[in-house]
């Protein structure tokens, strides 16, 4: 009997506990002593390899005092200068690069030129560093208090509280190694979202399934957000739902704008990496597939099977990321993914041209002195069209996470630019009625 008991224990601890990990062990190198294979993968997130629409390219630059990085990712503004017109008047029009591996997150945030043009708040730090230790310290053990304190600081003060990119402690319970949510913004956000779905009082660390957690740990950061109120509280706008229209409705309700568009004077919004939201509308999510299934697939290391902690584009690792579920060859799977992405990319280009036409027309109308009242409707359509377009543009899978949804959003964006033009020229819509005898929508 003891025998079986011992074996069970052993089975559950297939590693050597070299060091004791506590809730205050932030440094991943220490965790790596117990879990060298995972740590090895984690360190490999410095690799930079480009895929057709993802990965990243290592671009050399001359280090300066204000920015000591000698390698950065390619500039998205150079790749597509139309982005500058879309974001005119906002920090993103100054510097915006392709995102790269987790290892760079802290440096890339610290040294982006967006820091030079705007005084950024401490809230930025939540998603670019191992912040759990900082929360505990600043809140005297209460992470919600620590979170509030961090948000209120100016960026460079908050920056001093952290020293690692996202680390083991941000996703794992150090005693059981179970996944754990450490971000107050996500706890609050997912609770509000679940409430909108009729699930009351959702406590993510108590109520989520293991499979949900395999996506939720990523949803801590790969989401749309804004800074609420003067406290700059990092907030996920999910109380109406996760779809683009739910999020826009929320921003309209709370009358939030990110900036005033320089050319048109419209109150506009910037969407940012809504991977979790977009993925949630796709068939993979519906079929119970999680972020970790594709971005951290199991990999065999000797006699053990572990999660690949080299988080990266699955298209660089199709064999493990896709082929266990899809019995098609690598080239075929790559083709399927890229066909989805190319369709999205082409629609994104059309939608961006359309948006620029609208921006142009509003600007002209403004320049010839048409009163604000006459521009209000068109400006609101710009806000809509731009947010919809940016929701796909800023989402980093180029449509793969939810192919039909991404294209739908771009189509609606173009419809908003159309309505914006009509508002400017005074053309009234003919119909807005739904057809009679419509099947009810589910």
């Amino acid at each position, binding site marked *: 009997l003891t025998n079986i008991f011992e074996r069970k224990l052993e089975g559950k601890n*297939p590693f050597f506990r070299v060091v004791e990990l506590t809730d205050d062990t932030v440094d991943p190198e220490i965790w790596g002593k117990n879990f060298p294979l995972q740590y090895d993968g984690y360190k490999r997130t410095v690799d930079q390899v480009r895929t057709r629409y993802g990965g990243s390219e290592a671009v050399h630059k001359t280090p300066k005092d204000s920015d000591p990085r000698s390698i950065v990712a390619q500039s998205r503004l150079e790749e597509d200068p139309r982005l500058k017109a879309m974001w005119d008047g906002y920090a993103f029009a100054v510097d915006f690069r392709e995102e790269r591996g987790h290892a760079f997150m802290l440096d890339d945030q610290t040294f982006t030129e967006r820091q030079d043009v705007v005084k950024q708040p401490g809230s930025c730090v939540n998603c670019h560093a191992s912040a759990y230790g900082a929360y505990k310290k600043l809140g005297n053990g209460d992470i919600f208090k620590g979170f509030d304190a961090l948000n209120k600081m100016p960026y460079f003060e908050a920056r001093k509280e952290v020293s690692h990119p996202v680390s083991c402690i941000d996703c794992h319970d150090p005693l059981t*190694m179970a996944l754990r949510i450490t971000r107050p913004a996500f706890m609050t956000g997912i609770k509000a979202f679940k409430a909108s779905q009729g699930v009351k009082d959702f406590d993510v660390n108590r109520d989520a399934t293991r499979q949900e957690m395999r996506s939720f740990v990523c949803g801590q950061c790969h989401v749309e957000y804004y800074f609420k109120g003067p406290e700059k509280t990092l907030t996920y706008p999910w109380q109406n739902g996760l779809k683009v229209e739910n999020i826009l409705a929320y921003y309209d309700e709370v009358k939030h704008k990110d900036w005033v568009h320089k050319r048109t004077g419209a109150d506009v919004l910037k969407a940012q990496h809504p991977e979790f939201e977009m993925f949630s509308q796709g068939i993979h999510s519906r079929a119970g597939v999680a972020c970790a299934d594709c971005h951290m697939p199991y990999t065999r290391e000797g*006699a*053990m099977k572990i*999660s690949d902690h080299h988080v990266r584009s699955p298209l660089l690792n199709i064999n493990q990321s896709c082929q266990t579920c899809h019995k098609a060859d690598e080239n075929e799977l790559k083709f399927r993914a890229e066909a989805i992405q190319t369709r999205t990319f082409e629609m994104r280009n059309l939608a961006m041209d359309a948006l620029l036409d609208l921006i142009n027309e509003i600007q002209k109308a403004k320049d010839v002195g048409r009163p604000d009242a006459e521009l209000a409707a068109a400006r609101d359509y710009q806000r809509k069209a731009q947010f919809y377009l940016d929701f796909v543009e800023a989402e980093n899978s180029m449509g793969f996470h939810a192919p039909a949804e991404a294209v739908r959003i771009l189509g609606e964006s173009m419809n908003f630019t159309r309505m914006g033009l009509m508002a400017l020229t005074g053309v009234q819509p003919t119909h807005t009625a739904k057809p009679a005898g419509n099947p009810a929508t589910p």
Partner: protein
Amino acid sequence: MLSRKLRLVNLQILKLALVGLAIGAAVGIGLFTFVYAKGYSYMSNDAVACANCHIMNEQYAGWQKSSHRAVATCNDCHTPHDTIGKYATKASNGFWHSYYFTFNNFHEPIQISGKNLQVAEASCRHCHSELTASITAHRAGRDEEISCIRCHRSVGHMH
């Protein structure tokens, strides 16, 4: 050893037969079928035995093409890995399969039931526990087993 197994089998059948009588003639016929249609072939470990029913042909054909054809037979995955459980499961499944086969009113395509799914999942762990210990160990807090077939659905028989 062999005779003990057989006794166990007979006992199971007897038990089921009694239940059957209570339910009615239908079950009696099912039991007859169990014998007639070589339902007793359930007690063998030979995969061919399962293919005795043409209904199982698809899985049999799929199994022959699968990665496990040389390493696991039907019973390795579809019966528990302890003797009693094994024959209890076989007898009960064998009985019900015969019953459904005769009366022809089961869901098609055939779907694995919750209990039998657990048996299959446990069988993966039985053979692969060492390899997968590292991924199954850390689940304190929420005591959920990770599902193997979520990713490895087609290992037993290509669908």
